């Protein structure tokens, strides 16, 4: 796989427009007045007052509610569906299945539908079998329960570690291997291992993690004749538009998708789902709007996950800390369909540390479980789990501080990309050094090593680092900034604000250029009918894609304003500039004009500035880097781990909005604690093949009691003047990549036990501690 040539994972199957490149080069700011400040979110009022309308909140006149009947078995053939009784129930307005008279209508095709909307060959628990629209959700669920389905149950396989055995049941007739193993090689690993003073080899496993955003996936669909409007909880309205249009064979101009507020996605809402199409078809059939919001259980089964990963890593190092070779084998599963089961799983091994010899092999395998979807830094928390624990173990073997070992191997260029392009900036050294200083690494490490061994409590500290191969942003993106004649501003962008603070960052960019209050920037966003193209909010790409675009639009409108002012004031435009929202002159410091006082602006009523995203620097790579540190306390009798404190030191370029930047770090660490310590999908492989913990009671998310009360954030800004005209790189994903590995390393430091499998929960740890004692 060559990363640059392939389409990024969140754009697979999506048609993207080309945007014209910006005419002029815009230099990054030196000093900023607004950007980077800790200002409140521009949409905080809506989100705390209850006035923000999320897709699940949309209530339309005469709206019906949909409910979906899903296959209860991991593998089954649907023989018949009898909807007669369901259709007679009070309140029921439509029922659809693969056996409906409107069969053709239930056979839309699109990449995300895989086979059929209502599949008669169900390859995973939770596959859609039928759907109902009724007057209330209660009526709809009554009807779902009244549908009679005859299933022929088929043999299933629930564990990718068993799925390649010769007698394993087949998920697809062609076999359970999704494709030939994907391989990568540079140098000569055998020669590298021969040069090493220490060679370690270790197996690691990370469990399947489920996104479960707080707002379940869902959509509301409404038809006006042949025009469809969809309100969807999505990270990317344009992806939903193209998905729905292709599924229903419609023109883009007939499909409008609105996603103003959405309750979290983490990669699982990058494109439309079957629920979108079901809502549209039921709405068509009943000639009424239909709301289709999934139940929590459905979100555990059918709308994505982070694949489980089985990894083996062999690494060689010299006594002076020079890495000589790394070899990696990984398997994983995206479930019952091709869904990136090993997507990017080996990237950190290939590219995080300087190492002349590297070889990787990854194998994606089918099992009878719900398809994966991209999940916050696909492949990376898993790979960091292996690589960063291996770095820790190598450091112990050669008697070196784990931070020093990492510092010795920081790359200046991308080894895994063709032509070894340099990074525009590599802040990893600063992340490690400044992070360690703020954390008090040396003192904390000595303190916990020297702690008395009386009693059951042990303390330890751990570190892990990462890069994220996206996070540079890219074209295409277009934004419009409109200046009203009273001097106030409107911003138009297609980007969704998925809670990361996108709107706030963009308003601050406008404020920086035009001297207005960011809170007074009117924002239209995430509506395919009215806003400019923006890619889906994913890949930590949104700020580095959109902020430079919006800045270009603001500068465009500023130039137009100065032209008008120069004409009206009868001076050369080159002498005018905008400061604090006022037109001022280099020639005469006395001159100061409010834009609203310009008669020509009053006559024009509005100026419209357009910005496009310029291309990324040629031949260079723009990547965020990070290092995270934590201190834990372990009770070696009970296996309980208390995460006492965490620190994230991040090079994500310029901090655009300090509060939301910190919040990303806090949230990424919380999610990483879940990945490393509490979360695991459990499939009952021996008996039923069903998921046994498809709810938040049995599938444990971190709660307020599981996270450290304070998380420190140390932004590292190397002043990247090449990345883009704002110098910002993405933060959302790097914030969660190294977290779990840092916890594992701290647990090792505290106890001497190496936890190679997630999650580090008390039962697993107490078992490992007992094994350590020889019990």
């Amino acid at each position, binding site marked *: 796989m060559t990363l640059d040539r392939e389409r990024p994972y969140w754009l697979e199957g999506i048609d993207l427009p080309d945007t014209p490149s910006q005419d002029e080069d815009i230099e990054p700011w030196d000093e900023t007045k607004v950007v980077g400040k800790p200002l*409140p*979110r521009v949409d*905080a*009022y*809506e*989100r*705390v*007052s*209850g*006035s*923000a*309308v*999320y897709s*699940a*909140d949309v*209530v339309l006149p005469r709206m019906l509610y949909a409910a979906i009947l899903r296959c209860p078995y991991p593998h089954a053939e649907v023989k018949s569906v009898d909807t007669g009784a369901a259709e007679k129930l*009070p*309140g029921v307005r439509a029922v659809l299945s693969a056996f409906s008279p409107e069969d053709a209508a239930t056979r839309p095709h699109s990449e995300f539908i895989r086979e059929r909307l209502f599949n008669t060959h169900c390859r995973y628990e939770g596959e859609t079998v039928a759907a109902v629209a009724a007057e*209330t*959700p*209660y009526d709809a669920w*009554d009807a779902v329960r009244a549908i009679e389905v005859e299933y022929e149950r088929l043999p299933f396989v629930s564990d990718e570690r068993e799925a390649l055995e010769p007698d394993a049941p087949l998920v697809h007739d062609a076999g359970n291997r999704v494709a030939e193993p994907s391989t990568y090689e540079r140098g000569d690993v055998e020669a590298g291992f021969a040069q090493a003073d220490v060679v370690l080899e270790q197996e690691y496993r990370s469990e399947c993690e489920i*996104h*479960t*955003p*707080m*707002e*379940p996936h869902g959509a509301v669909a409404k038809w006006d004749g042949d025009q469809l409007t969809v309100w969807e909880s999505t990270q990317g309205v344009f992806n939903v538009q193209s998905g729905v249009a292709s599924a229903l064979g419609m023109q883009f101009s007939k499909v409008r998708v609105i996603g103003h507020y*959405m*309750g*979290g996605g*983490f990669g699982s809402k990058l494109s439309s789902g079957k629920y979108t199409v079901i809502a549209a078809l039921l709405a068509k059939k009943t000639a009424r709007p239909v709301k289709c919001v999934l*139940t*929590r259980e459905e979100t555990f089964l059918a709308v994505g996950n982070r694949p489980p990963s089985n990894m083996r890593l062999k690494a060689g190092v010299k006594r002076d800390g020079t890495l000589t070779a790394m070899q990696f084998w990984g398997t994983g599963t995206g479930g019952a369909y091709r869904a990136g089961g090993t997507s990017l799983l080996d990237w950190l091994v290939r590219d995080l540390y300087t190492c002349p010899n590297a070889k990787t092999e990854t194998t994606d395998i089918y099992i009878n479980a719900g398809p994966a979807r991209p999940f916050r830094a696909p492949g990376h928390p898993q790979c960091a789990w292996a690589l960063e624990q291996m770095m820790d173990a190598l450091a112990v073997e050669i008697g070196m501080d784990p931070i020093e070992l990492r510092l010795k191997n920081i790359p200046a260029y991308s080894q895994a990309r063709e032509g070894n392009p340099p990074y525009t900036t590599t802040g990893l050294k600063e992340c490690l050094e400044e992070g360690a200083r703020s954390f008090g690494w040396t003192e904390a490490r000595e303190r916990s090593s020297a702690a008395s061994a009386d009693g059951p409590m042990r303390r330890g500290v751990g570190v892990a680092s990462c890069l994220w191969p996206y996070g540079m942003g890219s074209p295409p993106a277009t934004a419009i900034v409109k200046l009203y004649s009273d001097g106030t501003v409107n911003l138009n962008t297609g980007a969704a604000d*998925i*809670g*990361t603070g996108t709107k706030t960052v963009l308003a601050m960019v406008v404020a920086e250029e035009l001297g207005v209050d960011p809170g007074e920037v009117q924002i239209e966003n995430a509506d395919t009918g009215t806003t400019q193209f923006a890619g889906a909010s994913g890949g930590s790409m949104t700020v580095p894609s959109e902020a430079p675009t919006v800045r270009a639009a603001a500068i465009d409108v500023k130039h137009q304003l100065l032209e008008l002012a120069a004409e009206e004031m009868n001076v050369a435009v080159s002498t005018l500039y905008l400061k604090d929202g006022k037109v001022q002159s280099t020639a005469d410091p006395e001159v100061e004009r409010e834009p609203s006082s310009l008669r020509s602006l009053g006559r024009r009523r509005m100026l419209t500035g357009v910005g496009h995203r310029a291309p990324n620097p040629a031949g260079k790579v723009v990547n965020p880097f990070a290092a995270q540190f934590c201190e834990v306390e372990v009770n070696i009798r009970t296996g309980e781990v208390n995460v006492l404190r965490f620190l994230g030191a991040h090079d994500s370029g310029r901090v655009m909005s300090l*509060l*939301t930047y*910190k*919040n990303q770090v*806090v*949230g*990424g*660490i*919380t*999610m990483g604690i*879940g990945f490393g310590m509490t979360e695991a999908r459990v499939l009952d492989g021996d008996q039923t093949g069903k998921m046994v913990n498809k*709810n*938040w*009671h049995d599938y444990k*998310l971190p*709660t*307020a*009691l599981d*996270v*450290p*009360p*304070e*998380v420190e954030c140390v932004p590292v800004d190397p002043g990247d003047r090449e990345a883009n005209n704002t110098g910002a790189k993405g933060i959302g994903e790097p914030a969660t990549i190294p977290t779990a590995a840092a916890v594992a390393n701290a647990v090792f430091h505290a106890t001497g036990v190496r936890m190679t499998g997630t999650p580090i929960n008390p039962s697993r740890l107490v078992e490992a501690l007992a094994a350590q004692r020889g019990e």
Partner: protein
Amino acid sequence: MTDDPKAPGRKGVSRRGFLTSVGTGALSAVAASRIEAEPTERAELLEGEELSKVTLILNGRSRQLLVEPRWSLAHVLREELGLTGTKVGCDRGECGACTVLVNDVPRYACLMLAVEAEGARIETVEGLMEGEKLGHTQQAFVEKDALQCGYCTSGQIMAVDGMLRSSPNPSLDEIRQGVSGNLCRCGAYAHIFAAAERAAELKREGGAS
């Protein structure tokens, strides 16, 4: 706590008596939910579609409406009354996104039937507003950026506001316990703790609301 939930009288009435007598505080809320989990022996069996009249004291105003006995309070608030500030994340009492105050005590609106709320004082996030102005707890969440996607936020705010009514000066441990029934998948907990402390401060400075 002397009320016997099995005492004579229809559930609406006995429940109102029960709720008004338990007062405030997290412990009472825990005890109340435990007792409610027991089956009500004298409950009348009603057909699903048969509508019951219920009176709610909703955000300070009395509201009469007809509901199916099986409708949850969360469903009625959101889909029947349009109070969509109250969110539903799981509909089974696991996430707390639907937290409202019932007689000042935080409760999961998805686990409470609308008919159970007969006569009770129900407050939703909309009820914390003073006109267009944010209430203290809401304001604190803005200042501390104690949210990301915002979908759990109403529930977090109601949990904090309820906690502060029974414990105006909570310790950090109390705060963490107080919001431990409210999941935040974006993981903004550390900021939520800070917001709870700030809300307590604002309430001390600014009086009720």
